[in-house]
């Protein structure tokens, strides 16, 4: 059983941990640059230095401060928070469903959110509350409902990861059909609104919405962190995880409940944003491996970075116009994902 490395296991561990910490630090630095660029980019172009001065409260121009603090920063930070949520939940789903293609799309969560939003848009005039409140609430509720359906199924005796994936795909088609029905019945104005919501947009971000999403995610993070080792063990297969004393069914249900709330919160305010939840965990996995103490923060960082970069791209692809971010993530995400799949070592699935 001889190997090539002569270093002791403990030394190997320390080197690997140091490499991972360096990768995360580099990712954080890249994210800081991306967020600055995001805040600098828009109809009134600012320099990154001007943004940095404003953020550090060193700016002398109240106009720059107003642009940065009232408009740009909530959008830029919403990209970070939503991207982090999508990346983390994607990683959790891929682990608990034992499927490299799992994301909030796979189990119908995004389709549920889309249907929820569209339902409110179509029913808009009959609702007692403002549409700006009702749309995210409904999107959140239906995203959670989709995940709850999968969750309930997971609670049945004998439910496997495959059962959950199949149920999720069935739910996705159901919600897509219901969404298509709503689009078919909607007025031209409502239809336009639905389509715009489905494209996904960060421009509706405000500090209040950002605080809600960030607060929910901050509350969920410790719950997920507590299960990091159990999730890592699950990557060795259900049997082996169970042999290690992990209640696989309970872990899966806990993780899905967290995913339901986190994804619901993330998509409620920004609409459905594809591919981040799928690609970010793969990127993190390639760089950091599958020890979930590293994979979960890594996926959050990769998701934040991808969505932040997509936000910059959405504002620069067509100068003067805002390209829907959902389209950018899909357009960039597909070839990137193809590259990942074709070039990455296929050793992990």
């Amino acid at each position, binding site marked *: 059983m001889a190997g090539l490395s002569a270093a002791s296991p403990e030394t190997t561990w320390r080197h690997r941990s140091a490499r991972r910490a360096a990768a995360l630090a580099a990712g954080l630095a890249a994210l800081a640059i991306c967020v600055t660029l995001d805040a600098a980019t828009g109809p009134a172009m600012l320099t990154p230095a001007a943004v940095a001065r404003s953020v550090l409260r060193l700016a002398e121009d109240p106009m720059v401060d107003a642009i940065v603090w009232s408009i740009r920063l909530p959008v830029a930070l919403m990209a970070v928070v939503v991207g982090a949520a999508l990346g983390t939940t994607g990683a959790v789903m891929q682990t608990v469903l034992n499927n490299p293609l799992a994301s909030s799309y796979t189990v119908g969560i995004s389709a549920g959110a889309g249907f929820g939003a569209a339902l409110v848009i179509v029913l808009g005039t009959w609702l007692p509350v403002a549409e700006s409140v009702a749309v995210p609430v409904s999107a959140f509720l239906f995203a959670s409902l989709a995940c709850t359906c999968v969750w309930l199924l997971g609670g049945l005796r004998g439910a496997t990861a495959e059962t959950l994936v199949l149920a999720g795909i069935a739910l996705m088609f159901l919600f897509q059909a219901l969404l298509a029905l709503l689009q078919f019945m909607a007025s031209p104005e409502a239809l336009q609104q639905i389509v715009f919501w489905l494209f996904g947009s960060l421009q509706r971000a405000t500090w209040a919405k950002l605080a809600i999403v960030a607060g929910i995610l901050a509350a969920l993070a410790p719950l997920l962190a507590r299960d990091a080792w159990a999730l890592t063990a699950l990557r060795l297969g259900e049997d082996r995880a169970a042999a*290690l004393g992990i209640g696989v069914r309970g872990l899966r249900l806990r993780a899905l409940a967290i995913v339901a709330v986190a994804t619901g919160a993330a998509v409620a305010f920004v609409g459905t944003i594809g591919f981040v939840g799928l690609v970010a965990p793969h990127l993190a996995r390639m760089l950091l491996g599958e020890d979930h103490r590293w994979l979960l923060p890594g996926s959050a960082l990769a998701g934040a970075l991808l969505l932040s970069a997509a936000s910059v791209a959405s504002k620069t692809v067509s100068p003067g116009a805002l390209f829907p971010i959902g389209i950018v993530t899909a357009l960039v995400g597909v070839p990137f994902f193809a590259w990942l799949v074709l070039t990455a070592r296929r050793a992990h699935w």
Partner: protein
Amino acid sequence: MRLSVQDLSVRYGSRKALDGIRLDARGGEVLALIGPNGSGKSSFLRAVAGLQRHGGTVSLQGATREAIGFLPQDNGARAALTVLETVLLGRRRALGWRVPEAELARAGEVLRRLGIAALAGRLLGELSGGQRQMVFLAQVLAAEPAVLLLDEPTSALDIRHALALLTLLRDLTRQRDLVTVVAIHDLNAAARFADRIALLREGRLLAAGTPRTVLTEEAIARAYRVDAHVHEAPDGHIAVSPCRALDEAG
């Protein structure tokens, strides 16, 4: 330390995989489970490990159920985990977000004991089947179990490593007063390393006892439908030489 199994039965739908098995295993003793494919060896181990619904009772004297270490047969896991991370999972209950130095040292020690310390930084997907088998055994041993349930631990190993592993298991069993139950296909290895052998066929216990009492030509013919020559090797162990397969009618 004592593992006692009473009237153990396991069903898969209408099929009985195990039927009324009664077995005892004592601390410091290696019990080998032998029998043809589908005889119920894996079902027995899974049931005792608590991973399989079953009838009958499994009781442990001198340890809790958490002290059971189970090595499943499947070595196919290809997660992007290093060998050391995989072994540390065996110490999961003692780990927080940070891995204490003592736990790291303990996992490293198990790797050194199994002779695979040099693989510590390698990913599971980069290993051979035999290396993965050793890594998963290291994971089980890292948990320092009182009861070891091992399903075909040598199936992917060459004879040298299989010999070394079985010797190590026997030594550990003696030194730490473990109850070790090993499902194994190699009758000669079972005869050489087990203190007692349980012979299963179609979910029933055909015989249990010392290798000399269980490994008879009649029992092998009955259980495996194989004509075998059983003799005593120069070192005193029982040796089995399979000669020809008998037809199903016997």
